[in-house]
């Protein structure tokens, strides 16, 4: 039987990939050049200078460490808030509960980044509902934006849908009968959860946490808007560098170091999938 030749099927995607990776090869090559002072032009000779400059810069070091620390905090809190959601979504017998949770998650998700970042600026701002209520009750207002608090709160909100929707499939695939068996054998509910469900959901949980961590790591709009210039994450640092100096080679070097850092958790995901997945079953998708 005659089928369409494979080349035709793959040609469009190969063109897209050529543009995308072409851009990255050019980017990598340019990261070894340097900016001609006062212009947006680049010149050789090639050197590791830009990379060295990023690695020894106290500002860049601090921002990389801050970004890792904040991403870790955000991931853990999002995990604590999100796990029960994913669990109820998978286990609730009620169709209405199921639909409501999915509705809440998808509407917030599709409302987009700018909507949510701006909403948190209003809620947490000095004249926002929280601080005005505090003042009305005789307390002094608490600075909740233009600092890390605002960035962390808004980012937790941003990543929860990703976390829940990733974890949900795993919990759904764990047969509820296993928990039932544990309880019928005299285990309490929390024991059934702790000894059966949680370990079985581990591969999915770790994947969901790593995905959440990666998304947080690369967040950009939220530190920009809620950090008020006082909280830097790596993405906003790169943006500032481009805005202030238009130093493409230096920005390229910093971007590529950042890319390597952000790919570590994802490589860990595939490792987790192949090892834990084999041991526990659970999420083979």
């Amino acid at each position, binding site marked *: 039987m005659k089928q369409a030749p494979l080349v035709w099927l793959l040609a469009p995607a190969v063109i897209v990939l050529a543009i995308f990776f072409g851009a990255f090869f050019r980017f990598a090559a340019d990261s070894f050049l340097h900016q001609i002072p006062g212009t947006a032009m680049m010149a050789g000779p090639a050197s590791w200078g830009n990379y060295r400059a990023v690695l020894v810069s106290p500002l860049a070091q601090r921002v990389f460490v801050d970004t890792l620390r904040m991403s870790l905090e955000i991931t853990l809190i999002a995990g604590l808030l999100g796990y029960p959601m994913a669990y109820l979504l998978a286990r609730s017998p009620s169709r209405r509960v199921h639909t409501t949770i999915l509705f809440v998650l998808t509407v917030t998700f599709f409302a987009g980044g700018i909507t949510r970042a*701006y909403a948190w600026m209003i809620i947490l701002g000095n004249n926002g509902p929280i601080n005005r209520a505090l003042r009305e009750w005789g307390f002094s207002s608490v600075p909740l934006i233009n600092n890390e608090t605002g960035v962390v709160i808004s980012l937790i909100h941003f990543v929860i849908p990703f976390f829940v929707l990733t974890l949900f499939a795993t919990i759904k695939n764990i047969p509820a009968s296993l928990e039932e068996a544990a309880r019928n054998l005299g285990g309490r509910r929390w024991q059934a959860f702790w000894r059966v469900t949680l370990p079985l959901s581990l591969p999915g949980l770790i994947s969901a946490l790593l995905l959440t961590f990666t998304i947080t790591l690369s967040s950009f709009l939220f530190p920009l808007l809620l950090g008020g210039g006082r909280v830097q994450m790596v993405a906003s640092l790169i943006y500032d560098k481009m805005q202030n100096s238009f130093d493409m080679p230096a920005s390229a070097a910093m971007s590529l170091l950042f890319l390597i850092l952000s790919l570590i958790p994802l490589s860990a995901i595939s490792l987790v999938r192949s090892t834990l997945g084999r041991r526990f079953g659970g999420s083979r998708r």
Partner: protein
Amino acid sequence: MNGKPYGAGVPAAVTIASLFLVLPVIVIVYYAFNPTGLITFPPRALTWRWFVNFFTTPAFRAALINSLLIAAIVTPLTLAIAVPTAIALVRRTFRGRVALNGLILSPIVIPGVVSGVAFLNFFTWIGLAGGFWRIVVAMACFTLPYAVRALVSVLHGLDTALEEAARNLGGTAWRTFLSVTLPQLRPGLLAGAIFVFVECIDNFSIAVFLTDLRTSTLPVEAYGYIRDFDDPTIAALATVLIVQSLVLVFVMQRFIGMDRALGFRQ
């Protein structure tokens, strides 16, 4: 049996998390109809002023038109690229298939800022100057994985018997594709289109590097406005986007089913 697998604590925790999730949506819609920049409760009056301001400000009108045009070009373009790709990935076996799949999905996991600066550098190098087409090309590359993923998930669930029957009855490959395969792909096409469309309208991290003085997009324009002004005009924009989100969720629920649209069930 032993009753429910969870105690009352679980629904309570989920209720709190859900309220946390919807809180910003509710506050921002309320704020959009608020007459002043200060939120008052109960409302003293409601106003359409900020919506009028949003739709009559020339910069926002231009950005809105750009964003919609970009989404209107990128969405069908990306789907047209994604359909043959997904078919090759699911239906054919060839060397390097797994690697190709990984490469196609990779733009999702690269931080947006990194892709944004890399695209800016690339377009400057090849001499593509106009902001509009730079964003179209970049978004087509960036959104391809969303469309491929949605289509691959549907293709995996399709029975090939129908296609084989069509071919055995003498249909050409092209005829079979058009009248048998493509109609069955509809849920994947719709889900993919929604994800690509939303990403085109909402993307900030790539677009912010590619806009120029003549071409801006909604999120980039909104970001500039938030930095310079302190009034609820952006809340009006946010409300429009929330309504859009509700419509898309309704379409997904009605025509694909939420579980399938999100890739939980094939």
